[in-house]
């Protein structure tokens, strides 16, 4: 007697998406914890936070906000394109998103290296001579923007995998959960930045 087993591949995209959302909830609390620490210290050292925040370049911050907002739109459009079966357009939009993410990182590189030139980096002698509140501000600034930038890089990797999969046809108009979830991740990166930007750059 032989047993015949057949494996029918089953893709439950609703559940797959729910799983991604639950992961995003944990991400929200990861950053949420940092936002909470920031809020309490800002309440405690508001004057020092204002002085320290004046060091940040609001123009670079605004530029990066625009990059992320536009990239959020292009990735949402990439999903629309793949759902409509417009593969070439989806690829173009995904590559545009990755390019915008790259520009964001480039900006971050200039921003940080400019601070390093002035001796403002975690553990630097300049920072040690600053007031306690300023020290806390820069500590939080590097932690929050650093963790966010790390997420941007992960997002770039995810989007690149999607480019390969769209090219290979494994992400297509009937199977696009991978792209949908990667887009959700990318929007979260945008969402975190929407709060980071006014809290760090616009408080002078």
């Amino acid at each position, binding site marked *: 007697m032989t047993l015949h087993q057949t494996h029918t591949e089953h893709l439950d995209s*609703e559940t797959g*998406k729910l799983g991604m959302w639950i992961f995003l909830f944990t991400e*929200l609390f990861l950053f949420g914890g940092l936002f909470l620490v920031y809020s309490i210290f800002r309440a405690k050292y508001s004057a020092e936070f204002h002085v320290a925040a004046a060091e940040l370049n609001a123009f670079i911050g605004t530029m990066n*906000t625009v990059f992320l907002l536009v990239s959020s*739109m292009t990735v949402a459009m990439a999903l629309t394109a793949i759902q409509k079966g417009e593969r070439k357009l989806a690829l173009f939009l995904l590559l545009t998103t990755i390019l915008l993410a790259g520009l964001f990182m480039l900006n971050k590189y200039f921003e940080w290296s400019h601070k390093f030139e002035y001796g403002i980096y975690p553990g630097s002698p300049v920072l040690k001579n600053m007031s306690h509140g300023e020290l806390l501000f820069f500590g939080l600034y590097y932690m929050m923007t650093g963790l966010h930038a790390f997420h941007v890089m992960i997002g770039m990797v995810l989007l690149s995998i999607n480019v390969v999969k769209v090219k290979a046809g494994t992400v297509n108009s009937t199977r696009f959960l991978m792209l949908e979830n990667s887009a959700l991740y990318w929007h979260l990166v*945008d969402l975190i930045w*929407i*709060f980071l930007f006014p*809290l760090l750059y*616009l408080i002078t």
Partner: protein
Amino acid sequence: MKHDDKHISSYESLVIVLAILLALTTISVLITGFHLGPLTVAVALLIASVKVAIVLTQFMHLKFENRFLRLAVSGVFLLFALVVIITFIDYFFR
């Protein structure tokens, strides 16, 4: 396969959403130039919250998802708000 009821965001609507988000960003940048004191933070956070709500409902497609997911997301944001409020109560009245 249930593809019939799947909502696909149109390119036009996504462009409009981006335009609104950029307009709100401009407002929040301009408003910091006015030195409204403690109000500045409140206004900046209010605008940020509106932007986040737009990203969630439009870009992240929550407006067209099922009720369970929408409730779950609202619940998580509510939970975070509670954590913030309780922490501040602890901080101010300790």
